[in-house]
C-alpha cells in the first residue's frame, strides 16, 4: 500500500466529503427557511408601481424560471451541482442577472486584503508579545502588558470597532469613516492609491488586530510556558546561552509550528469576511455581501460566498494535514 493510498487519498476524499456536506447544508438551509426571493423581487417591483395582477402572476412565473427555483428541492439541488461543477455559481437573485461570481469578485480583494493583513499582523503581534511576556513572565512590564491585553481581549468586536471609529475618525479625524480607498483614486500600484488603501484599512484592521491579538497572545504565552519547561530549553539555559538567543532560537522556534498551522487555518477562514468590522467601517468586503444576501434571501449569493468560505477552511485543514509532516521534522504520517 502506498502512502498515497493510505494517507493522502483518504484525506483528499475526506476533504471532498466535507465540502460536499458543508455545501449541501448551506444550499438547504436558506431554501428550507420561509424566505422567498421571488416575493422579495415582486414586492420591490410592486413598490415601484407595478399593479396589474395578471402581470404580477406572469412575472412570478418568469422569475421562478430565471431564478432556478422550479421543481422539487431535489431537482433544484441536482441542477445546482451540475452548474457548480462547471464552475457556475449562477446569477444573483436580488441583483438579477448579475452573476454571483462578479458580485463576490468586487468584494473579494478587499476582504482578502483586510483579513490577510490583520490576521498576519495580529499573529505576529500576538506571538511577539506572547513570547516576550511568557519568557519574561516575572518582569513588571510583562505583568502590565498581560493585564492590558486581558482587558482588551474581551471587548466585543462591535464595540471595539465603534470606539475606534468614534475616536479616530470623528473626534480626532485622523482616518476616514468608510470605504476602502479614497474617492476617485485609480486602483494601481502607486504611492497615492496604496497610501489611500492603507489609510482606509487602518482602523478596520486595527480593530480586528486588537481583538485577535489578545487571543493569539494568550495561546502563545501558554505555549511558551510549556516550552520553557522542556529539556532542551533548560539545557540551553544551563549552558548559559544568552537569553535572547534562547528566546528566539529555542522558545520562539518551538512555538512557531503549532502557531503556523493555526495561522493557516485562520487564513483559510478569511473568505467569510469580517462582518461586524465591515459593517461598522462600511468596508466593501464579503461579510457585507453575505449579510445583505441573507437579509434579501439571495440564495445564490449565500451559497456562493459560503462555498468560498467552506473550501477555504477545508483546504487549509487539508494542506496542514498534508504538509505538517514536511514542516515538522518529528512528525510522520501514521
Amino acid at each position, binding site marked *: 500500500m502506498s502512502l498515497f493510498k493510505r494517507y493522502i487519498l483518504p484525506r483528499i476524499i475526506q476533504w471532498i466529503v466535507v465540502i460536499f456536506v458543508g455545501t449541501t447544508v448551506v444550499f438547504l438551509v436558506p431554501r428550507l427557511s420561509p424566505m422567498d426571493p421571488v416575493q422579495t423581487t415582486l414586492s420591490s417591483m410592486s413598490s415601484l408601481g407595478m399593479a396589474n395582477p395578471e402581470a404580477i402572476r406572469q412575472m412570478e412565473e418568469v422569475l421562478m424560471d430565471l431564478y432556478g427555483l422550479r421543481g422539487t428541492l431535489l431537482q433544484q439541488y441536482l441542477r445546482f451541482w451540475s452548474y457548480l461543477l462547471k464552475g457556475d455559481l449562477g446569477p444573483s437573485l436580488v441583483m438579477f442577472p448579475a452573476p454571483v461570481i462578479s458580485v463576490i469578485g468586487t468584494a473579494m480583494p478587499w476582504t482578502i486584503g483586510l483579513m490577510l493583513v490583520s490576521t498576519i499582523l495580529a499573529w505576529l503581534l500576538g506571538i511577539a508579545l506572547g513570547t516576550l511576556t511568557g519568557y519574561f513572565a516575572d518582569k513588571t512590564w510583562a505583568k502590565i502588558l498581560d493585564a492590558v491585553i486581558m482587558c482588551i481581549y474581551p471587548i466585543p468586536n462591535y464595540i471595539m470597532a465603534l470606539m475606534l471609529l468614534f475616536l479616530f475618525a470623528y473626534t480626532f479625524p485622523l482616518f476616514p469613516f468608510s470605504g476602502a480607498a479614497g474617492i476617485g483614486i485609480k486602483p494601481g500600484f502607486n504611492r497615492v492609491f496604496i497610501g489611500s488603501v492603507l489609510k482606509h484599512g487602518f482602523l478596520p484592521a486595527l480593530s480586528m488586530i486588537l481583538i485577535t491579538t489578545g487571543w493569539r497572545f494568550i495561546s502563545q504565552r501558554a505555549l511558551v510556558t510549556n516550552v520553557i519547561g522542556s529539556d532542551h530549553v533548560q539545557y540551553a539555559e544551563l*549552558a548559559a546561552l544568552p537569553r535572547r538567543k534562547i528566546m528566539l532560537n*529555542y522558545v520562539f522556534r518551538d512555538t512557531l509550528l503549532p502557531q503556523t498551522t493555526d495561522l493557516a487555518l485562520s487564513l483559510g477562514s478569511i473568505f467569510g469576511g469580517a462582518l461586524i468590522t465591515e459593517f461598522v467601517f462600511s468596508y466593501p468586503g464579503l461579510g457585507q455581501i453575505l449579510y445583505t444576501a441573507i437579509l434579501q434571501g439571495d440564495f445564490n449569493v449565500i451559497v456562493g460566498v459560503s462555498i468560498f468560505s467552506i473550501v477555504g477552511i477545508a483546504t487549509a485543514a487539508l494542506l496542514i494535514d498534508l504538509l505538517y509532516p514536511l514542516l515538522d521534522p518529528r512528525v510522520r504520517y501514521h
Partner: protein
Amino acid sequence: MTLLEAKDLKAYYITKSYGIERTVHAVDDISLDVNTDEILGIAGESGCGKSTLLRVMFGIIRPPLQLIHGTVAYRSGDRSLDLLSLTDDEYRQIRWKELSYIPQGSMSVLNPLRRVRKTFWDFIDTHRPNTTRREFEDLVTGHLSDLGLPAEVLDAFPHQLSGGMRQRVTIALATILKPRLIFADEPTTALDVIVQSGVIDLLRRIQAEARNSLVIVTHDMGIHANLADRIAIMYAGQIIEEAPAKQIFGNPQHPYTKYLIHSLPRIGDKSHRISSPGRPPSLMVPPKGCRFRDRCEQKRRICREERPLLVSIGENHKVACFLAVKEGAHAS
C-alpha cells in the same frame, strides 16, 4: 589534587503552593571533593538527591531549589572561585569552557527543530564568541571524529538519530570545549546495553585523553563499577559511604551499600538475592537519627537518636554508620 570542594551543602526545594509551604531536603549537609584526573561516581536510588547534588556542585540553583548553606570552591588556575556566589556574568566566563554538564534524559536536550550543527554553533558561539565558521567546522568535525562519531550527524535533526547516537552527540556537545570538569547526570539511562557499553567506553576515553575530571551520577551500580575511580553512595539526601570503587564493591561497610551491591544479579549466577526491604524516608520530614534505620536489620537504639556522621574508617574510605565507627575511626 582537589579541583572542586563542596562544603556543608544544604539545598532544599522550597515550594509554596496555595499557602502550604513544602520543603524537600534534597541535599542535606554534604561535603564532597572532586580531585583532578579522576572519575567520581555518585550512586543512590531515585529521589535520594544525587541529581540535585550534581546541580549544586555545578553551580546551578534555580527556584524552587534554594541553597541554604555551603560553598562550592572551584580551583581555576591559581584562583579559587565560589561557584555559588559568582554573578551570572562571572560564571558565564568559565561555564562550558571549564565546567560542563551532561544532562539527565539527554534524549530530549537537543532542540528538536534545529539541526545538530546549529546547536553546536549556538553553544560554541556563546562561549567563544569570535569563532569563525572555518574554525568552528574544524573544531567540531575534529572533536566528533575523536569520539568516533560520523560527521553526518551534524546535518541531522535529533529525531533522525538513534537514542545512543543522540546521547553520544550530547556528550560531544558537553565536551567540545575540553572542560576540566564534567558533570554527567545519568548519562546511560534508557540506553540499550550495547550502546551503553559504548558510552561507558566513550566517557572513559574522554577522561583518559584529557586527564580531566568527571563526576557521574547514576543509580546503576554496573556503570559505576565499570567507570568510577571513586564512589560516593547517597541515601536520603546524605552521603553514607565514600570510597574507591574497588573498596565499595569489595568491602562495602554501610548496610545500605551492602544491599546495593549484593542484590545485583549476574549472568551465570542464579543464587537467591534480596532487595532491601521497605522504602526510603520522605525528604519532606527526614527522621532524626540515621535515615536508613527503618530498613536496617542491624539497627540499634543510637540509630534512632543520633545521626551518624561520615567518618574515615580507612584510607579514602568514609562511612556514616555507627556499626562501622565502632571500629575506631575518627570523624572526617
